[in-house]
């Protein structure tokens, strides 16, 4: 059993007893960690109510070698997640970030780049920046970092270049665009405008400058949201719990 220090985002909290919480944390240094925080529900003590959803904290935890849960012994709040009045889009965007991080990463599988992307996204959402764009950027960044980004330029089946003009076939099961030959007879194929695919490529770019400059018109945003809803459901094997709430992203 060794004591570790980490920077963490709180993904989930479950009341364990009158005074304790079981928390799921995304740490920058170790990846996802499930841990018991004894006394975390008390007003005073080593937690100071820092372990609230989506909060960014510095934590100290004891890593258990056996099957049992790790133990958080200290948490210091760095930034609380709090949206401004009326910004439900930002709030639901934040919950969605937590759901995807929890569902799509494994315990003790660290992805510092993904952590930083989540941290940056949550800060922007709380700040009231355009929620729809930041959530799309997060989803595509996450898919790229985890190696799940759909093929956007080459046919997912035969590898041929797919002409980026007009409507392009997108096979959810095949993991990307399909050329005219390969789309025949395929299931779950959506027809997507080439502009939407270009926007996806730019949003997934690891270079911040590429997507920050991007202006996405309402129609492209709508199509992209629809495509991502289907694709994420396919990748997760179920519809994300937050999906029905994502319509709020546009109502900011």
């Amino acid at each position, binding site marked *: 059993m060794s004591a570790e220090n980490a920077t963490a985002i709180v993904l*989930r909290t479950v009341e364990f*007893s*009158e005074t304790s919480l079981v928390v799921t944390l995304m740490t920058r240094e170790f990846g996802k960690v499930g841990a018991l925080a004894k006394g975390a*529900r*008390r*007003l005073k003590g080593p937690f*100071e*109510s*820092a*372990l*609230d*959803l*989506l*909060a960014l904290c510095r934590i100290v935890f004891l890593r258990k070698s056996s099957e049992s849960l790790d133990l958080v012994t200290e948490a210091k*709040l760095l930034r*609380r*997640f*709090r*949206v401004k*009045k*009326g*910004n*439900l889009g930002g*709030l*639901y965007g*934040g*919950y969605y970030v*937590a*759901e995807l991080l929890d569902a799509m990463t494994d315990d003790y599988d660290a992805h510092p780049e993904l952590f930083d992307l989540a941290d940056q996204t949550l800060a922007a959402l709380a700040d009231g920046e355009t929620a729809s764009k930041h959530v799309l950027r997060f989803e595509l960044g996450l898919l790229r970092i985890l190696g799940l980004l759909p093929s956007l330029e080459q046919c997912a089946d035969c590898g041929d270049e797919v002409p980026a003009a007009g409507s392009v076939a997108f096979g959810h099961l095949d993991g990307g665009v399909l050329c005219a030959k390969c789309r025949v007879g395929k299931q779950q194929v959506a027809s997507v405008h080439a502009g939407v695919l270009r926007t996806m490529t730019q949003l997934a770019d690891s270079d911040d400058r590429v997507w920050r400059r991007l202006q996405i018109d309402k129609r492209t945003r709508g199509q992209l949201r629809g495509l991502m809803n289907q694709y994420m459901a396919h990748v997760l094997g179920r519809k994300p*719990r*937050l999906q*029905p*709430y994502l319509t709020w992203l546009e109502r900011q």
Partner: protein
Amino acid sequence: MAEITQAVTDLVDQFAKLPGIGKKSAERLTYHILHVHKSEALALAEAIRNVKENVRYCKSCYNLAEQELCGLCRDPGRQQDVICVVEQPRDLMALEQTGMYRGLYHVLLGRIAPLEGIGPDQLTIDALVNRVRAGGVEEVIMATNPTVEGDGTALYISSLLAETPVKITRLARGITSGSVLEYANKEMLSDALTGRQTF
């Protein structure tokens, strides 16, 4: 003897199911019950039965009640034009203990927690909106827990009430963010009520 042992074991098991009660405490409670006067022990059993058979939710505010309406809703001395919105009946009890508030309540019976699969439809939000739309309400005080989900619930409700002329306020931040109302002490709750701000 086997039968007696079984009865004792059953009681220990029942106590051990209660929150915060471990095996040791369950045994202590069982021995206590075995030693007290029969009438005292049966009063406990009767109180449990009574609660389960007669307590329901108030038709208006969803507080615990023994009739259609709870005692607070039936009390003509309560200010009728202010509604204080809380997550659970125990939050209402904590606020009542301050003695600072004379209006009515609305108990949501939970909070919006999309990550846990709890949406607005599973709470008593519709009933609250109907109460406000029916008229006679001047102010709605949001006293949900100062957590991300509690604040989010208040935010959602205030977005629904935005078209009504009612004034919406939020408990002051005397209560530590990220904590829960029921653990705040009387003084903190009093301050939070007095210092409430427009939401």
